[in-house]
C-alpha cells in the first residue's frame, strides 16, 4: 500500500537504521566522542528499537577506546542490567573485565573474567586468555601459565596461549636485584648499594655527599665546634638514611622495570574487535596477530 508522507520544506526524516549507521560511521573513523553522542541520540529517539542494547554496548566500547573507564563500565553494566540473559550480557561482562585490565587494575578485572568463564562457555577462551594476561600484569607467572594452558584447542587463541603458557614461566627466573642486599650494602658504605644496582652516578653522589658531611662533622668536633658538629651530624643522618632508602627503592624500581620489559617482550597480540553484523545481530570478533 502506498503511503504518502508529506515532507515539509526544512524537515528531514531520519530512520532508526540510518541513525545507527551514522553513529557507527563515527566509531569506525575513531571519532568516539561523536559516536557516543549519535548512539545516545538513537536511543533517545528510538527507545523501542531492537538495536538499543547494541547502541548501549557500543557506547561502552567508545568510552573504553578513549580511556574513560568508569563511563565504559557503567555502560556495559547497563547492558547487563537491561537484559541479563540477552546475547550481549556475556560480552558486556567480558568488557567490564577488559575495562579494569586496560585501566591497570588486573586484579579487579579477574573477578569478571572468572564470571565469564563460569557462565558463558562461548566466551570462555577469550576470558581465559585475558585472565592470563591479567596474571602476567600482577607478576603471577605460574597462574598466568595455568590460565593460558586452559584455552582449548580449536580456539583462535590456542596456539598463542600455548606459547604464552611456556613463556610466562620464564618470569620466575628474571635477573632480579635483592632490595635487602642493596640496603645492607648501602649501610656498610654509602654508594655501594647503588653500585650493586649498576647505578654508578647515583653511587658517586651518595658516596661523595655522605663522605663530605661525615668528614665535616668529624672535623667540627675535632676543632671543638660542637654545635656545628651536631648540626652536621644531624644532616648526615638524613643523608645516610636517604642513601639506604635510595638503594632499596632503586632495587624495587629495577625489578619493576625488568618485569615490565619482560611483559613487553611477550608482545601482547590480543585485539578485541567489536563489529556489528548488521541489524540482525552483534558479533564480537576476538582476533589476534603474530
Amino acid at each position, binding site marked *: 500500500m502506498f503511503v504518502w508522507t508529506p515532507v515539509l520544506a526544512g524537515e528531514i526524516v531520519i530512520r532508526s537504521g540510518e541513525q545507527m549507521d551514522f553513529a557507527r560511521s563515527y566509531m569506525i573513523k575513531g571519532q568516539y566522542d561523536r559516536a557516543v553522542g549519535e548512539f545516545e541520540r538513537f536511543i533517545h529517539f528510538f527507545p523501542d528499537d531492537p538495536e538499543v542494547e547494541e547502541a548501549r554496548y557500543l557506547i561502552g566500547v567508545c568510552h573504553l577506546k578513549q580511556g574513560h573507564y568508569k563511563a565504559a563500565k557503567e555502560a556495559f553494566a547497563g547492558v547487563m542490567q537491561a537484559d541479563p540473559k540477552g546475547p550481549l550480557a556475556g560480552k558486556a561482562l567480558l568488557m567490564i573485565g577488559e575495562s579494569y585490565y586496560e*585501566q591497570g587494575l588486573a586484579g*579487579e578485572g579477574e573477578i569478571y573474567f572468572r564470571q565469564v568463564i563460569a557462565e558463558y562457555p562461548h566466551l570462555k577462551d577469550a576470558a581465559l586468555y585475558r585472565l592470563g594476561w591479567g596474571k602476567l600484569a600482577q607478576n603471577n607467572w605460574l597462574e598466568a601459565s595455568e590460565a593460558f594452558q586452559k584455552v582449548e584447542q580449536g580456539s583462535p587463541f590456542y596456539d598463542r596461549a600455548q606459547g604464552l603458557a611456556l613463556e610466562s614461566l620464564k618470569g620466575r627466573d628474571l635477573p632480579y636485584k635483592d632490595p635487602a642486599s642493596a640496603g645492607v650494602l648501602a649501610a656498610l658504605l654509602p654508594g655501594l648499594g647503588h653500585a650493586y644496582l649498576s647505578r654508578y652516578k647515583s653511587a658517586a*653522589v651518595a658516596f661523595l655527599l655522605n663522605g663530605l658531611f661525615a668528614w665535616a662533622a668529624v672535623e667540627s668536633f675535632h676543632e671543638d665546634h660542637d654545635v656545628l658538629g651536631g648540626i652536621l651530624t644531624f*644532616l648526615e643522618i*638524613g643523608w645516610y*638514611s*636517604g642513601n639506604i632508602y*635510595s638503594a632499596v627503592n632503586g632495587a624495587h624500581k629495577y625489578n619493576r622495570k625488568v618485569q615490565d620489559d619482560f611483559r613487553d617482550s611477550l608482545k601482547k597480540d590480543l585485539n578485541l574487535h567489536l563489529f556489528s553484523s548488521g541489524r540482525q545481530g552483534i558479533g564480537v570478533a576476538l582476533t589476534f596477530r603474530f
Partner: protein
Amino acid sequence: MILLLGLLGICPGIPGGLHAGPPELLPETTREPDSGQEDGTNLGAWLATLFRDHISEVDGDRCPSLPSCSAYSVEVFKKHGFFIGWVMTVDRLIHEADEDSVSPLVYHYGKVKILDPVENNDFWWFPQERERP
C-alpha cells in the same frame, strides 16, 4: 635543613640516557602537581616551598625530572610527614643522576624530562589509591 634545601638546587643528571624508547608526549597543558596552599604545621613542606618560591625562582628550572625536586619535596613532605619526607627528598637528589635507566622519559613544554613522581618511589611500601569494583 637550610643546607639540605640548598642542595635541592643541585640537579645532576641529564635525561635521555639508557631508557628504551622515545620520550612520550605529555599534553602541553599538564601542570606540575599543585602543592596548593601550604599547611603551616608541615615544616618540611613549608621549607621546601620557601626554597621553590624564593631561591629556585632566581636561577630557573634546571631540574631534569618531573615534578621538579622542590615540587617533589613539598609533595612528599605533605604525603609522608617530616622524617620520611626528608629521607625521600634525599633519595630524589641521589637517584636523579641516572633515574632515566628505570623511569620513563616524557616531553614537558618542549623539554625532555624524567617522569619521577612521588608514587614512583613509594609504590613498594605505600598502598596506592585504587578504584573499588
